[in-house]
């Protein structure tokens, strides 16, 4: 494996990992900006639009056809939040030419990727109306379909309260009214403004470095990258637990319990989350599920970028309070220092497993490096493991003691 980092002339940071065992290549271009400066519905539709057609392949079927012929090259877009930052990612994954003997033209996939951003399909200076309307419909349908996955719905609804009055509380895609108001002209103008005022990073993982120069050349057509901050924005503490309840027509109730802490302690908090509810030997799994049979899942995760601990659970309606109490008891166990050697070892092994698996796929390399970049800490997985290994049980108990109950959001079945 070889890693290389370079800053292009337009201040774009380029990260490259190559590994001969791969058969595919992956190139991700991230544009990031502070959430409250972004019209998210416009960007959601624009990003979907530009990954569906280009100036050269000026219809969905034309681009799709081309990608099919490139052995299923996959051009995609995604939007996400991290801390108080909004991220738009346009990427492409494709089979390396080593495995396609009859490939006629070099670098077609990378050209398509960069063209999607710099040469979108326009009609009279704006997005094509027909394709635009299809993408707008996709977004409106996605917003309506938020309720389909109940667990995901719980996270979406509760975010508004967990990060109350913070940029992170804003819905990722905007709401239905915002989405309906977007038009081909506004979306294109907002898209141009967005990419011209974003921080831009390129992450490439692949078989070898033969594509480096091509990427550097193509990247010249991208705007100048601006530096932004806000990737790590601890969420404000509340003075008391905020409780919200919503009724939903389901068989099973669900709830989410969040905690916050002053400051950031990434490694200690991550270990706390795993010991509490990150594995089948965690406290929540063994006690709330196995011993008390209250649930099928009761999981815990740590949102590092917002310094927020989240526990979620699916239970029978009449057991909501019982399950909440059972969870709180397990948090108390940790505060009281009741962390066994086995629990500590198991949590560490879970991290070791994940860390050592980085590099088994091009996707895992890009995820790792991009995460490092946005955390402003480029380290190897081995260096990360050392930091985890330095954490003690006492430190974990201490941060557990500093946890402040934040939000209790319930989706109660009708």
């Amino acid at each position, binding site marked *: 494996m070889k890693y290389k980092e370079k800053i292009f002339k337009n201040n774009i940071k380029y990260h490259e990992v190559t590994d001969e065992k791969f*058969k595919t290549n992956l190139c991700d271009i991230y544009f990031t900006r502070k959430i409250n400066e972004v019209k998210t519905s416009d960007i959601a539709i624009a990003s979907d639009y530009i990954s569906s057609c280009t100036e050269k392949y000026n219809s969905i079927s034309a681009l799709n056809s081309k990608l099919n012929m490139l*052995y299923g090259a996959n051009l995609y877009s995604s939007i996400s939040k991290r801390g108080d930052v909004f991220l738009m990612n346009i990427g492409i994954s494709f089979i390396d030419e080593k495995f396609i003997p009859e490939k006629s033209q070099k670098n077609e996939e990378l050209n398509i990727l960069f063209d999607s951003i710099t040469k979108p399909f326009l009609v009279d200076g704006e997005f094509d109306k027909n394709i635009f309307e299809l993408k707008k419909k996709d977004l409106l349908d996605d917003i309506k379909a938020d309720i389909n996955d109940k667990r995901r719905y719980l996270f979406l609804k509760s975010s508004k309260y967990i990060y109350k009055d913070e940029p992170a509380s804003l819905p990722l895609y905007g709401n239905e009214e915002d989405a309906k108001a977007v038009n081909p002209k506004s979306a294109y103008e907002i898209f141009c403004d967005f990419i011209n005022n974003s921080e831009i990073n390129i992450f490439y993982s692949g078989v070898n470095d033969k594509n480096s120069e091509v990427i550097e050349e193509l990247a010249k057509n991208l705007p100048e990258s601006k530096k932004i901050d806000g990737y790590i924005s601890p969420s404000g503490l509340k003075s008391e637990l905020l409780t919200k309840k919503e009724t939903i027509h389901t068989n099973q109730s669900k709830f989410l319990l969040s905690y916050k802490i002053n400051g950031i302690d990434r490694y200690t908090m991550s270990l706390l989350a795993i010991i509490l509810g990150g594995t089948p*030997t965690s406290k929540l799994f063994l006690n709330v599920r*196995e011993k008390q049979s209250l649930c099928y899942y009761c999981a815990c995760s740590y949102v590092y970028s917002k310094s927020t601990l989240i526990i979620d659970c699916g239970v029978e309606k009449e057991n909501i309070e019982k399950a909440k109490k059972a969870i709180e008891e397990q948090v108390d166990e940790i505060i009281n220092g009741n962390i066994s050697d*086995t629990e500590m070892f198991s949590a560490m092994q879970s991290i070791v497993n994940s860390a050592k698996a980085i590099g088994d796929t091009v996707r895992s390399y890009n995820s790792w490096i991009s995460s490092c970049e946005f955390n402003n800490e480029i380290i190897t997985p081995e260096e990360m493991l050392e930091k985890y290994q330095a954490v003690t049980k006492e430190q974990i108990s201490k941060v557990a003691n500093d946890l402040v109950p934040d939000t209790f959001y319930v989706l109660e079945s009708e």
Partner: protein
Amino acid sequence: MAELKLIENKYTGDKTYYYKLDVGTDVLIAEMPGFSSSIAYFGTRYGSVNNKFKTISDDDFIEVPEGIAHYLEHKLFENEDCGAFERYAKTGASANAYTSFDRTCYYYKCTDNFYDSLEILLDFVQKPYFTDETVAKEQGIIGQEIKMTNDDPEWRVFFDLLRNIFYKSPVKIDIAGTVESIAKINKELLYKCYNSFYNPGNMVLACAGNIDHEKVISYAEKYIRNEKDNKVISEFPVEPKEIVRKRSESIMEVGIPIFNIGFKCDIDEKTRARYEVIADIAFQLLTDKSFELYKDLAEKDLINSNFSYEFFSGHGYFVPLISGESIDPDAVNEAVIAEIKKIQDTGVDENLFEEIKRCAIGSLIKDSNIVDSVASKLILAGLDKRDPYYESNYLYELKAEDINKFLREKIDCEKSSLSIVKNKRNGDLA
């Protein structure tokens, strides 16, 4: 003495070692040097459809409650001394299991201590331990799992489709059963099912990653118990060729209505593998964004980007299906049927076929580079007693005429059904 075979994918150069133990267990291993992870699956040919069976020592067939295969999977992780997860916690492996219609698989993934974890896997799966107390405890947990899946509209629309299509086949039964059916499960029944289906001759070990095939085989030889083949057979009701109903609707909390359009196909078991590859290409073509059907429906606002396909098949069932979201699923259904009938007359476009074939080949190449995908494909091929590279073997040789023949001879639009899940607020569609 069994012979070790090396099976090579003549198109991609990938290799799999195959070895059959004297006790009958099939062992498949793909060495992937340079990767950090390794995965092992230990699976049995037993799933939710096997609810009526007998072994060589039974006088008659016995029928068991729905959901028992899944219940058994949950309980197998517990042991008299130490649960499987506690043991894996010491080796660092991340473990899980799943039950499907015709198989149950136990697996783990790790970056260290692969062989210690392999010993755990082979041990706990072969050491059932059920008591009245532990069986009773699981009722609440699986009850919540059932309720969770019952709240999933995608699950509901799919099982509604199965109930539209199948009269008697147990494939229409929910894999986890119902809260009522699992209440009938006791330790005696669990032992009966275990002893019938978890026989070495009915099981497969499949491993992929940074491993050595000889060492894996030596562990299999050492830890897989010596047990005579009990010749378990399942009885399945005779399923009529017709479908039950052409359409169904269910009400749930969803955004816009979701739908499945499924086709009941009559496929001989001997040719099922080949038809799976053909059906995959045929339905990928039908739902592709380059194809007229997608363009036409999208322009009419009848579908969105979630318009897709899948198929599922097993011994005695073969159902390709098209899925999506629409404000008017009936109109989509009508258009899909019309298009299939048209292609049955005219045949598929050769250029589009070539595109889809290339795309599928690309997917195979990508998957062959991912440890999880390689291991998953190995266990599935092993349980179905197929060449591990059957997909490549059929795909690379596929012609447009194969698709045309499949659509003409195996897809009968009279045996299709539409299932819809919608929100009560959707009310009258259109």
